């Protein structure tokens, strides 16, 4: 239990306050008091310090993600680059233009959207973006059905994303259908928007590695405009297990030994290199969420239930969880 008046708690990160609230170790009143005290501190320290603290919180959020080490390293590099460029500008030195449009390559469920969302926050705290929000779109949101419709739809999404990040999922699909397809018009419109709003918009193109590589090869104009390429590797078996444990822990559940072994078996099936859909965090989430529902069905008719029963996911829950 976190006691009121404890001096250390003012330095708690947003994540820690949330964790304690969720665990029931902190009341909303105490959490609000911490937020207020932090706000007071920030007001006292000034805008710059406020941005630094918020930036630190966003970076902590990134660090809390399981795995993704190369991604985290690259984000730190980017953060350092942006900061140094800002310092150089302040000193009147020559600066590199801040072109932060990116390509995210990786299988579904490898953390692309999550990282994009955190990047938005990081760039906002660093003053690169005004709002730092994420607008997630796909082909259907950008490409229209008749002449002129595509430009209008694309412009609408760009407008929504101004001050933040426009995240285009499965971006390679914009190039499908050949020359006559309206996807091309959308790409042209996006390129124009990148020029028009270069100080106020970051574009992220995301999708499967192979398709994205082909997409960029066939659109050389685009390739040069997206200097940052990040590859999201599939999670390893150990990382997927860590994610599963984390998800269960956050929900006050735990697996017994047999359930854990079964989960390892399932994940092993999905995590080979020759598998069509390699293992990913979304698969783990689905298995865990189904297992939780199966556990509920298993327990609902029982008369004598102990705390441990309510917390434990068994072999049957996991097995059914996969099939369900």
């Amino acid at each position: 239990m976190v006691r009121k008046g404890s001096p250390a708690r003012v330095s708690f990160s947003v994540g820690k306050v949330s964790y304690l609230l969720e665990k029931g170790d902190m009341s909303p009143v105490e959490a609000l008091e911490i937020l207020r005290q932090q706000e007071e501190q920030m007001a006292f320290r000034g805008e710059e310090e406020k941005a630094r603290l918020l930036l630190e919180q966003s970076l902590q959020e990134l660090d809390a993600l399981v795995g993704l080490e190369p991604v985290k390293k690259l984000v730190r590099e980017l953060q350092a680059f942006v900061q140094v460029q800002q310092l150089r500008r302040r000193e009147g030195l020559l600066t590199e233009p801040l072109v932060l449009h990116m390509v995210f390559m990786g299988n579904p469920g490898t953390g692309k959207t999550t990282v994009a969302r955190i990047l938005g926050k990081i760039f906002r705290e660093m003053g690169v973006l005004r709002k730092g929000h994420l607008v997630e779109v796909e082909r259907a949101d950008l490409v229209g059905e008749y002449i002129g419709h595509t430009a209008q739809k694309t412009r609408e999404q760009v407008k929504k994303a101004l001050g933040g990040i426009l995240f285009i999922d499965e971006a390679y699909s914009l190039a499908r259908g050949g020359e006559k397809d309206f996807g091309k018009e959308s790409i042209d419109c996006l390129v124009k928007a990148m020029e028009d709003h270069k100080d106020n918009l970051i574009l992220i193109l995301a999708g499967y590695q192979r398709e994205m590589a082909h997409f960029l090869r066939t659109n050389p104009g685009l390739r040069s405009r997206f200097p940052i390429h990040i590859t999201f590797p599939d999670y390893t078996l150990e990382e997927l297990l860590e994610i599963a444990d984390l998800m269960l822990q956050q929900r006050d559940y735990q697996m017994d030994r047999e359930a854990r072994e079964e989960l390892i078996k399932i994940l092993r099936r999905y995590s080979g290199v020759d598998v069509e859909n390699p293992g990913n965090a979304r698969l783990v989430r689905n298995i865990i969420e189904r297992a939780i529902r199966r556990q509920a069905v298993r327990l609902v008719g029982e008369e004598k239930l102990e705390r441990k029963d309510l917390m434990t996911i068994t072999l049957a829950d996991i097995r059914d969880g996969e099939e369900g």
Partner: protein
Amino acid sequence: MIGRANVGKTLFVINFAEYLGLDEIELVIRFPNGFSTAKRYAIDHARRELTGLGPHKTRCLQSVQLDIPHGKGRKRVQITDTAGLIDTIHQDVEVRRAIAQTLNALRQVDLLLHIIDPTGVAREGARAALGEVDYQVAQFAQLRGRYCILANKMDLPGAREGLQRLIRELPGLYIIPISALYKRGFKEVKAFVCRHS
């Protein structure tokens, strides 16, 4: 939107959308586990489905995009309904998680509308009815600026007296009396939102 449980936050959001001319809303629902979804509701359906007499009906962040007519143009705002706050630790982990999500979002908003039920203030006195959580929200929000209190349920008996007590208890704060149910006071809320967005 922030406030204690059962003060009428969700009803306000739905009826405010209707007041601005919408007959259906697209609700972007963000769950505490980080996942989000969008759902389209006819206004009547939204009122039936999303509001209720009991507390803690809303257990995640629910946002609606609104175009507010302003001068010759329109201002686009996103209004987010949140889980109701309480002073103590709730026994249901889902409610605790939703409250954590609400407080997490608090730092990121541009404008804070804090709903308070003044009928409770009339009945029990400001200190007892508001509880610590409302005072903390008010103190936090004052540091950030762009904040106002919506005294809801002004259609109920005792609300006027409660409002007077509220004004005395929270001096210097901008308080707009409203009735989310009958859409009263919405013009002032609209003006406030336009001024500060």
